């Protein structure tokens, strides 16, 4: 069997949570960002899927939006839209604004 976390057809799934948990604010923002990036053709859906599969074991430890967002971050770093340093700097800036 393929170790690919996106290729699980036919495997035992266990109980399925069918409760609608709604979307948190950050999840809506993450979705909006993802839609903007794809509609502006900065990234493709195929690339986002591949980047999510590349998370390996982390894929299973993350929730749906965490997974897609982490994949998006990795892809944007890979494509050089920003550097790790720029991202860390921005996170620091936002954190300070949030904490103050």
């Amino acid at each position, binding site marked *: 069997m*393929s170790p690919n976390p996106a*290729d699980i*057809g*036919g495997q035992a799934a266990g109980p399925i949570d069918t409760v609608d948990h709604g979307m948190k604010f950050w999840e809506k923002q993450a979705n909006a960002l993802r839609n903007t990036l794809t509609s502006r053709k900065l990234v*493709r859906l*195929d*690339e986002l899927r*591949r980047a999510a599969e590349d998370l390996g074991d982390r894929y299973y430890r993350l929730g749906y939006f965490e997974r897609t967002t982490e994949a998006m971050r990795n892809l944007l770093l890979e*494509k050089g839209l920003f550097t790790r340093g720029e991202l860390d700097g921005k996170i620091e800036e936002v954190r300070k604004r949030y904490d103050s």
Partner: protein
Amino acid sequence: MTPSTYTPAPERRFNVGDRERVKNANPPGHRRTPAYIRGKQGEIERVCGRFPNPEELAYGFDGEPRRVLYRVQFKQREVWGSYAGSNHDLIEVEIYEHWLEPA
């Protein structure tokens, strides 16, 4: 509305009704043929068109040359060893030409 990316596929290897087998391979990377259908024999149900290869798009390449996509029918009983339903039950999977070989 986004225009359809469908393009006709006059140059193709298979036609409706052809029997073929899905390659039984496990290459690394982003692959669009589910593991459960690899190695199984099926019949071409329709030609879906020619599309940029998603296995290349996934790495930021342009997806050329485009690949012919087929909808392929398989007997459920031949796909799942433990399938208890009718022998007439089918599963249809869309598979790119480079994953298919004549049965």
